[in-house]
């Protein structure tokens, strides 16, 4: 039997504080280590499934690598077609059908549209219209000038109607707002 009796005074209470802090820290680290270990064990359980999945993906990658790619000329042709389609689809401002709908709503009944050049890429249109009454053409021009979605309305040409009839004819260039 060993003696453990001891008359040494107990350490000052403040001296215990760092000991308590260190023990708490050590305990916290121990808990963290246990959590990491548990996490690692869980990951190890997932390992077979993940390995199988990786093998599948490796197989797919190998299959893709094995199939031959098209020749470079085919890629160049495809690139040209895509560029053309992009060019066709590119426009500024209005769509032609949208512009026709606007004309239908604002063009006076006694004004006739003789020609229309719709330049979508340039964002402008040139129309030639005539009417027996100058007042109707004036109204039409005013409506075009007041349309807020037109950036610019320019009267290119103005003159009398052909075939010696009365009234007048105008050529107007419209620039759409982008």
């Amino acid at each position, binding site marked *: 039997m060993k003696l453990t009796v*001891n008359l*040494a005074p107990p350490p000052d209470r403040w001296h215990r504080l760092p000991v308590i802090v260190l023990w708490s820290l050590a305990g916290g680290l121990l808990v963290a280590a246990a959590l990491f270990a548990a996490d690692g064990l869980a990951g190890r359980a997932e390992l077979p499934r993940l390995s199988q999945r990786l093998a599948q993906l490796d197989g797919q990658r190998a299959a893709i690598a094995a199939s031959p790619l098209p020749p470079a000329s085919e890629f160049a042709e495809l690139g040209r077609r895509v560029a053309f389609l992009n060019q066709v689809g590119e426009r500024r401002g209005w769509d032609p059908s949208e512009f026709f709908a606007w004309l239908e709503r604002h063009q006076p009944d006694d004004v006739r549209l003789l020609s229309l050049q719709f330049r979508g890429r340039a964002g402008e249109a040139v129309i030639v219209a005539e009417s027996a009454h100058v007042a109707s053409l004036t109204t039409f021009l005013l409506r075009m000038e007041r349309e807020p979605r037109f950036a610019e309305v320019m009267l290119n040409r103005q003159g009398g109607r052909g075939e010696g009839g009365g009234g007048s004819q105008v050529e107007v260039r419209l620039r759409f707002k982008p």
Partner: protein
Amino acid sequence: MNPVAAGAAGLVIGRERIAYAEIRRTADGWQLVASREVAIAPDLLTGPPAPDTAAVLAATLREVAGDFSRRYLPLHVGLADPLVHFAVFELEQLPVNSSRQAEFARWRVAEALHLGESVCSSQPMGADDSQQLLLAMAMEGTGQRIIASALASAGLVPWTLGACSGRLFNHYQPHLAQGAAALVVLTPDSWALWLCDNQGRPRRVRARWRRAAEREESPAADAADIERSVVAYAHSRPGRAVERLLVAATDADDAIGAALARLAPGGCEFLPLVAIASSGEGGKGLARAPLIDLAAAIATAS
């Protein structure tokens, strides 16, 4: 108390001297790396305490321990045995928890040893027949406070504080567990007698200052005192016996040991202190004295 350590220090506070020993564990055993011994006034601890007792003791401790306070090593402080009191109580039941046990031990010690205010530490020792054994080690409160205050002033934090023979009791435990035995620990200024049962548990502990050295018959008188205590213990109760008398002395030629060997019918078994070598080159100037060897021995005992 002290797990296996690479080094330790022992400090013995005796009646007339204080000794310090620092040891280090090596492949060959223990090695003494520092030692010092300083004299103190004979009545510094045995006489009535003076206002400056703690300050004087602290100054002496600083001198003897050198720069120990700036290092971290387990420090075992052994007091001269007569400064510490032991008692073994036989109880029908132990107190329910440690705080009540401490309170009970303090009360019983004060009553049995007439100590008044005391500082006490207790330890259950198991059962003997239907009785529970409780060992108590106590010291007068004033004396303990003076020593604790002096140690603190000197920057020394004791790992253990107790009787020198208590530390040696642990060291000699394998010998004591071989049958009912009495262990006599002889130090330069005192002796202690540990009477143990056949399981190596202390059942009675007695310590006295040595009689004045100038009296020629003093060793024989001390030996006779020890013998009387052994006989009284053996006859105190049926079934009690002392089969072996073990003597551990700081001085191999201790006169009390020789007198005991003459008195005991079966002779004595002399137990050596822990063998501690002085360190190599640096150890040439190391002081070696019985009290220093005792300080080194209590540092090794776990």
